[in-house]
């Protein structure tokens, strides 16, 4: 009898200890998350970080990777019902030649260096004058609402980020495209982010949130 009790206790103990071993990748994260190659839980596509987990964005929204917020895509704005709607003239393709920005508000054609076509946008004074997906480029002589392309895009090398504003592949941890070669103090970065000097880490400068930037 005693032996049976001991055997039962031992069996229960071993079963309990082994229970934890049965932890595959699909079981390691919570709702709207996935286990990444970096061995951490990250939000699934079209979900953003909130305190304690991830929340999905509404249909039609996109993720602002730098600020972890659900925003309307470039060229759209949120209506009174919270739905993203096209804004006439905003984001229309332009080249300053045959494709012009005829809307009286979005009359600025923003063309990236080395690009032939751009998008129609508006002048601004600060971020409040731009839609959520845009940043007021106050470092320009004539500030305008601009976007940053490629931020957060998965990459293995900077070749994967070529052609985007986020042209640097951070391969140490996140393996995503980041915005590099900014100027500390000028902060040519997406809204609410700053240019961070990481030269002591061998990374040069990168755009990051102020709280993530070592002082």
């Amino acid at each position: 009898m005693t032996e049976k009790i001991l055997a039962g206790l031992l069996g229960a103990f071993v079963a309990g200890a082994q229970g934890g071993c049965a932890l595959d990748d699909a079981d390691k994260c919570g709702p709207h998350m996935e286990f990444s190659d970096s061995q951490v839980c990250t939000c699934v596509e079209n979900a953003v970080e909130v305190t304690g987990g991830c929340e999905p964005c509404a249909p039609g929204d996109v993720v602002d990777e730098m600020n972890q917020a659900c925003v309307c895509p470039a060229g759209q704005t949120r209506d009174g019902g919270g739905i993203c709607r096209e804004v006439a003239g905003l984001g229309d393709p332009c080249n300053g030649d045959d494709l012009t920005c005829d809307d009286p508000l979005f009359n600025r054609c923003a063309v990236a260096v080395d690009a032939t076509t751009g998008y129609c946008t508006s002048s601004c004074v600060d971020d409040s004058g731009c839609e959520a997906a845009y940043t007021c480029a106050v470092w320009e002589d004539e500030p305008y609402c601009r976007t940053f392309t490629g931020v957060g895009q998965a990459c293995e090398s900077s070749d994967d980020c070529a052609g985007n504003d986020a042209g640097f592949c951070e391969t140490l941890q996140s393996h995503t495209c980041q915005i590099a070669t900014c100027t500390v103090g000028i902060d040519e970065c997406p809204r609410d982010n700053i240019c961070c000097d990481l030269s002591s880490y061998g990374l040069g400068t990168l755009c990051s949130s102020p709280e993530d930037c070592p002082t």
Partner: protein
Amino acid sequence: MTRSPPLALIGLEALLASLLAGTAAAQPPAPLPQPAVAPSPSPPPPVAADDGLDGLGDLGLEQALPAEDEALTIYGFADVTYMMYFLHDDAAAAALFPKENRFAVGNLNLYARRALSDSWRLLAEVRFLYAPNGATHDDGTIDQTSTNDPADFDRPLNWGGIEIERVYIEYDVHPRVTIQVGSFLTPYGIWNVDHGSPAIIGTSRPYAIGEALFPERQTGLHAYGTLNVGEYTVGYHATLSNGRGPYETFRDLDQNKAVGGRLTLEAPWAGTLKLGASAYGGRFTDRDSDISVIEDGKLVNTTPKGVSYDERAFAADALWTHGRFHLQTEIITRHIAYRNGARGVSGFGEGFAPDSFTYGTYGLGAYRFERYWNITPFIMVDYYRPIASQYLDTIATVAAGLNFRPLPSVVLKAMYGEGWFPGAPDLLADVHLRTMVFQVACIF
């Protein structure tokens, strides 16, 4: 989802710091983080141990309890260590630890004990610390607790803190049932119950012990007892506590009590064989305080979820003594499952911490000679699988050393340790951390 790299790098630094600390007996400048606790239950004042092998484990700290003792007894132990890290100046770990060879005053622990009656006892243990002086932060700054001494013309002095290691009152309900209430050492394995620096053979704990896969101590109720069955001794422990938390000694933020237990068997097989199995289940919660707002004329209280997870830990241990030969081993596992909406950040600069299964094991062998201050050569191997990360898969260490006992209450130790990281990616693939540690520990 991305987050900028700076935090990732800081997380890596923390990881390396953790590795070095656990791998090779490395401790912050002073005091040493080695837990300074004597064996439970209720260690009495130290007396000279005999020369038998049992003395390896207790050094006189585990004698039979006396009956009622009106006197308050104060005793304790202390240790001083000389540490040598063999680090290159450009090693990542060199930025995190004082790489200079150095002396370090480690533990200074005082016990206060009184037998209130034949069946009631009180034990309190405090550790005196130099901390937070010398605490190093992620940004490279170091705390300095210098202040002016008003008793000495405001000349500078450095102040330190006190850690209450444990305090409990215990009562013998029955010859086979004793109950403790208060803060007590978690009864699991061999090391956590018997690991004051004079009592342990080496200079540092195995990784699986140091990482606290079981909580090192708990606050609540602890019942224990033994039963002799022929040549065998069967023991049990059962615990009910606040579980883990940032304020576990006086708050239970999730109001979810943790339970645990341990069974032991001592048998006269080829000497003496002691076997044990332990289990623990509880919930960890770290959150901000409640928020109260007035809505529609009513006071509405909200409790933030904070970071919270459920954990289960299991351990098995064996201690075999045969003549002057001593062999002990433990294996410890821990499973963590975060609650929805209460997941902690990863600590590696990106994303959230995953649910995890971690485990570790070690083996320690020693042989104690009668001559030359009871010289005791020993070897310890340590294997640990931490929470998965892209930087690290496994930590392995091997340590060997000598232990002397010139007096029953004084122990001298010398230990060389080497740690490495099997399966690690390039960053740590070829890293070997080596240390040499000398220590003198005594009971007073």
